[in-house]
């Protein structure tokens, strides 16, 4: 085991952002490897700047390095210039801590946060000097494992990844490590071994397959219908099901769920990079899971139930983290941070702490769309007030009922009014197009909403800007929309043009959109089955890495690979799935009953909203009952001001308690006269609503 640094160093004068490859972050560890501990290389398959802040990877990094029988180092995808430099002189993928070759590790563990990075996963396995296909590996090669949200449909990577972990990794990673370390002690290190016959890794994979939440694709077989007739030539046979190949392998793999977030106060030593990265700030996770029930949102569906971190622990992690890192910004993260019980008290106690001396900024990503939330944001974001982002997602109330994002127009306008009146001058709105049942009226509703937001802003400032950021919807597995046929590239492009033309005359409104071609490629892998592996491999072999980067993305790589493997966008992406169709992820469970998801899909088509079960009776989605746990929330009543699921009349949007906080930050324009009425009215309504 030898440091590759002397060979890496000369390459760094030839590449952009060389500090991506030097390590040395505050919080980085210097693990000492041994024959009795399993060595993990934790890999984020995208650039350093995107990957470093990933909290999941950092949590596992600490948990593994705390163990006696494990060491963990990190690697990120080298940018194309560095990869070319490395390949030209034969430098393999290396770790940042000790600059060791990836082959010196027993496990290559990938974080899968997005589908378009799959070709990077293959590229990194190859750059590590490991055969990309599971079938070509021996006991002399590291195990290739993967986890993260995309692991809920692992089938497109089944040929390349030895095992997947579903759900929370905190406990599972330790159990896997124990199995791997024991195998290493018994068989000698696989890492970099070349001498003699390689030990058989079948037993190791079988043992891993018996751990809860661990899915080993090679222990399962996918069956296909024998189709006859004209259809047999048009498309590949449909999947019939996926079943274990061996006794003792579970029929169905259930995800892992940690019951108490308070037992896992990680990361304790968040990494502070030397160069600027995305989300460059302290991050403290408020809670995991979300039961708002937005039907397009995979994260909300697969991370249930809601588990809050105790408020005192949040405070301690924030204060210790700020003192340790020197950051002046902390983000309180979750899927909907304003829903945290006692969010106001928590943030107030942070910003009022004398050690913050008025210079610490608190941010709440994933703002809920209502005035209350903006009030909280105004109070805590005392410094560096630039733009505020809301995500109404749908352009009309009808559309938002379909997707169960039950924000009324009034909610949005009150939120935007609050934002502009309290000093913000830029508002960004996130929308999706290509949602189920969408009409042109729904699409154009996006511009109507945004236009009204500009008009509200002009009451307060000259030169306000509203940006409508429009993404094409990709149906995700383990959501009610998993049966929906995605809009075609042509249809999404037509809708983008509708929006662009409608927005053109509106001064102060900018529409930005995601490339519909990239949306289609994401759809290819999102719901693909095992046979999609051949497509991914071909795209990679033809140079298609960094496909989520505009400068590297190439749709023709994907359509060519589909065609050459007997597949098409029509069949794999645009086609609606039927209730009786076997889905490639049916043998994997995020805790949600299939009949719950199907019923929710029917409800969506009927435009029925579904309230948040945190504060209303259970409708048995399966996430709690299946694991014998419950939502862990400190408050039995809905958060003040919350507009969704708070018992209002869902057919109209009903009464929504809106309350403006009176705090006006220094330098902000005080709310003009008419709003004082709004404060009074809203105050009364809040009294009603929270009772």
């Amino acid at each position, binding site marked *: 085991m030898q440091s590759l*640094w*002397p060979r890496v*160093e000369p390459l*760094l*004068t030839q590449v952009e952002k*060389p*500090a991506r*490859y*030097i*390590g*040395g972050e*505050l919080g980085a560890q210097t693990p000492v490897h041994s024959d009795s501990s399993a060595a993990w290389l934790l890999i984020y398959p995208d650039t350093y700047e995107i990957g470093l802040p990933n909290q999941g990877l950092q949590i596992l990094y600490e948990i593994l390095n705390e163990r006696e029988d494990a060491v963990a180092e990190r690697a990120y995808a080298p940018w194309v210039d560095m990869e070319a430099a490395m390949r030209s002189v034969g430098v393999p993928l290396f770790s940042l801590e000790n600059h060791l070759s990836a082959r010196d590790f027993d496990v290559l563990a990938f974080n899968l946060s997005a589908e378009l990075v799959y070709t990077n996963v293959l590229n990194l396995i190859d750059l590590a000097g490991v055969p990309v296909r599971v079938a070509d590996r021996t006991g002399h090669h590291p195990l290739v494992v993967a986890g993260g949200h995309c692991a809920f449909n692992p089938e497109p990577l089944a040929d390349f990844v030895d095992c997947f972990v579903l759900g929370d990794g905190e406990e599972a990673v330790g159990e896997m490590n124990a199995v791997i370390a024991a195998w290493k002690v018994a068989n000698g290190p696989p890492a970099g071994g070349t001498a003699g016959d390689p030990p058989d890794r079948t037993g190791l994979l079988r043992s891993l397959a018996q751990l809860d939440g661990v899915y080993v694709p090679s222990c399962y077989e996918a069956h296909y219908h024998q189709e006859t007739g004209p259809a047999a030539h048009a498309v590949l046979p449909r999947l019939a099901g996926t079943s274990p190949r061996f006794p003792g392998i579970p029929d169905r793999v259930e995800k892992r769920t940690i019951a108490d977030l308070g037992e896992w106060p990680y990361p304790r030593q968040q990494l*502070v990079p*030397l*160069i*600027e990265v995305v989300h460059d700030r302290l991050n403290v996770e408020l809670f995991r899971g979300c039961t708002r029930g937005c039907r397009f949102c995979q994260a909300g569906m697969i991370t249930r139930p809601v588990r809050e971190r105790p408020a005192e622990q949040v405070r301690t992690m924030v204060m210790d983290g700020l*003192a*340790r*890192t*020197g*950051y*002046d910004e902390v983000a309180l993260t979750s899927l909907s941070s304003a829903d945290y019980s006692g969010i106001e008290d928590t943030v107030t106690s942070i910003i009022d702490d004398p050690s913050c001396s008025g*210079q610490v900024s608190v941010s709440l990503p994933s703002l809920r769309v209502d005035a209350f939330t903006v009030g909280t944001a105004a109070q805590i974001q005392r*410094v*560096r*007030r630039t733009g505020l982002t809301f995500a109404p997602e749908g352009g009309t109330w009808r559309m938002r009922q379909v997707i169960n994002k039950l924000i009324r127009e009034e909610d949005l306008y009150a939120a935007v009014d609050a934002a502009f009146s309290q*000093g913000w001058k830029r508002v960004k709105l996130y929308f999706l197009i290509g949602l189920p049942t969408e009409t042109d009226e729904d699409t154009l509703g996006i511009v109507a909403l945004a236009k009204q937001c500009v008009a509200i802003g002009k009451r307060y400032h000259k030169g306000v800007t509203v940006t409508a950021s429009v993404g094409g919807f990709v149906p995700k597995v383990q959501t009610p929309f998993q049966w929906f046929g995605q809009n075609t590239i042509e249809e999404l492009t037509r809708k983008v043009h509708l929006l662009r033309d409608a927005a053109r005359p509106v001064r102060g409104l900018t529409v930005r959109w995601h490339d519909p071609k990239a949306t289609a490629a994401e759809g290819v892998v999102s719901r693909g089955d095992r046979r999609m592996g051949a497509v991914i491999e071909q795209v990679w072999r033809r140079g298609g890495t960094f496909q989520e980067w505009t400068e590297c993305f190439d749709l023709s790589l994907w359509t060519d690979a589909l065609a050459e493997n007997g597949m098409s966008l029509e069949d794999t992406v645009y086609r609606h799935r039927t209730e009786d169709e076997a889905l490639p992820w049916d043998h994997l469970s995020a805790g949600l009953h299939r009949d719950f998801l199907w019923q929710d899909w029917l409800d969506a088509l009927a435009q029925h909203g579904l309230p948040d079960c945190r504060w209303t009776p259970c409708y048995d989605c399966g996430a709690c009952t299946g694991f014998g746990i419950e939502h862990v929330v400190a408050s039995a009543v809905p958060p003040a001001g919350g507009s969704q699921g708070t018992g209002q009349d869902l057919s109209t949007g009903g009464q929504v308690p809106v309350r403006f906080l009176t705090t006006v930050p220094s*330098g902000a324009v005080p709310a003009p006269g008419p709003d004082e009425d709004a404060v009074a009215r809203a105050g009364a309504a809040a009294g009603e609503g929270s009772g």
Partner: protein
Amino acid sequence: MRIRFRFVKLGKIRFTSQRDVARMWERALRRAELPLAYTEGFSPRPQLSFGLALPTGCESLAEYLDVVLDDARPETAGVVLAELPALLTDLLPEGITVEESALVERRDGSLQQQVTSCSWTMAFTGMSRDALAQRVAALVAADSVTITRERKGRQEEDDLRPSVLALAVAPEPSGEFGPGMGPSVAVVAELACQPRGVRPIELVRGLIAVSGRPAGDGGEDAPTGDGPGAGIPALDRACRTQQWIERDGRREEPLARRGDPAGADRAVHALERAS
């Protein structure tokens, strides 16, 4: 109260940019709980001013930073200057060492305005000492040396020669650099910072240009045809050893080097003054 620090940047950390170093300092100063003065407005930032930007990839024995403390805060009076270098070195990443701190007058002007030239040691690989000496002599003897340099995204022709205040082959392999040095030969140079700063890579282009070869992008990497040991200068490492302020006809560093009066001019004493 304005405090000036001198620090070194050596080793792996040289691959970070000037902007990255600024952010490292901001975090370290906050962790040290110094009573920093902040700028006014919606986006208050600590009042820090760095001197001339060090190009990414270069090392330095002579980086400077001015930090303003908030005189309105009672803690400011209690700050012990002599303790700061060790305290901050602990809080900064490996490779950055704070060597000196002193009070400076606000009316002295910014480092950016004051510094007139910098001394550099630059190590080359792939060429003999004699070949390097020939090029150095040719450059020193030339009346003008035209190179291309990038300015606001455009390539411009420029005369390098007036900005090369001193240039000589270093007497022996120097110990300026951080770990990882291979075999190399070096020059020491003093390069003017005004009207605009000359970067080490531009001096390399000048050394290539004086042999009659076309200078410019990629020229440094062109294979050599000049016979054994001649070579095209390939820059391995560059280290800024001093920054100079010209004041009333005297040259001095932004912070005097205590107890090291000889060392203060260690690069220059080896130089033949070329201008």
